[in-house]
């Protein structure tokens, strides 16, 4: 009999400190809020670099456009999936949501390497030039990941590492989308490899650090 009375004593104690709470908005709305921040950064980059160069590149080489669209969709779906996994009771299969857009992003980027002509307004990056891309993706991924982790700490991610991987994917894809605005290099193996390295690094760091930060609940 002592066990039930212990539980009821705890329930009484929890009831005594009950205060009204503000309900968590649905995952799609929280993801949309984060994407608005990404859109605001994109707007600043458009003001600085203009959209002409990007549109010229996309018109001349549609594979670059498809890769850009894939990156944007990957960012949106990965963020949505991360917020969905932040709510107890949601299926772990939400994690599959960004897979198709990610395949489009990676596939279109890879196809670009097979072209034997150079997209308009671009050059093929030399061995050291893609380092700038790596720095850009990592520099933008850090604050975007931090924002997602901060937002998700208000939720209850019961699968912290999987959620952190999605956070990494969302922020790396968003950073790659932003890079598209001012990216002056054509798709090439060295450039693609640098992008892949940056994305994998962002996801791995998130899985290691973000998983711990999300676990404290």
């Amino acid at each position, binding site marked *: 009999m002592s066990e039930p009375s*212990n*539980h009821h004593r705890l329930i009484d104690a*929890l009831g005594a400190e*009950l205060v009204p709470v503000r309900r*968590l908005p649905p995952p799609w709305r929280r993801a949309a809020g984060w994407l608005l921040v990404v859109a605001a950064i994109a707007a600043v980059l458009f003001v600085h670099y203009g959209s002409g160069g990007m549109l010229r590149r996309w018109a001349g080489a549609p594979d670059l456009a498809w890769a850009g669209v894939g990156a944007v969709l990957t960012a949106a779906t990965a963020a949505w999936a991360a917020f969905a996994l932040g709510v107890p009771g949601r299926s772990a299969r939400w994690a599959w949501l960004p897979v198709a857009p990610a395949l489009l992003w990676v596939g279109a980027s890879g196809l670009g390497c097979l072209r034997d002509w150079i997209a308009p307004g671009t050059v093929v990056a030399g061995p050291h030039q893609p380092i700038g891309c790596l720095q850009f993706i990592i520099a933008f991924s850090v604050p975007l990941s931090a924002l997602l982790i901060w937002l998700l700490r*208000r939720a*209850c991610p019961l699968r912290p590492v999987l959620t952190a991987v999605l956070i990494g994917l969302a922020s790396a894809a968003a950073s790659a989308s932003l890079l598209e605005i001012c990216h002056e290099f054509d798709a090439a193996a060295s450039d693609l490899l640098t992008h892949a390295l940056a994305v994998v690094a962002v996801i791995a760091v998130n899985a290691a650090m973000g998983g711990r*930060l999300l676990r404290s609940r």
Partner: protein
Amino acid sequence: MHASLTADGALGLDGVFRRPDPRAALSATPASAQQEADQRRAAWMAAAQAGDRRAYERVLADSLPLIRAAARRQGVATDNIDDVVQETLLTVHRVRHTYDPSRSYDAWITAIASRRAIDALRSHGRRDRRELHDEQVLDMQTDHADAARDTEREQEARRLRAAIATLPPGQREAVEQLALRERSLAEAAEHTGRNAGALKVNLHRALKALRNRFHGDS
């Protein structure tokens, strides 16, 4: 009716990927009765989110069988199920704002209970690995084998846990990280995102509050 009310299932993903009904293992109650019970608990939790203490205590009391069933399904030993119940109740209290009343309450609490059950299994696994089997050590422990004292200690632990649950969030976090999970200041700071100084101050305040509470009780 309930499934059609999903607030954010625009892709219907949760509907498509819905897990087996978590209450199925509980009893042979007809599905409609289970659904009614789920809706009743959902309404109580929604009222609790608005600050209704009576509804909150009802929904928590009504959730105990669901939590026990989830712990059993994960393979938690009978002796440890009550610990999982307590941990789950504390987690529910911290994350009650994440419940969406348009969705199944039972699925929500079952997911939390299952996670706490897995945590309990891992924690017991770690403790078992750390155990010493040296005969001398066992001899030294004979006075601890007294069942009555163990029970008393368990009850004290539960009282302490209930008291910790009533601490402000920052103080509770410091106690959980530094005292219960035995993390170092640096580890706790990394896990919580707070600085070591704030954790130390919160721990100090929490210990003072707990001391006052227990001296007041005795």
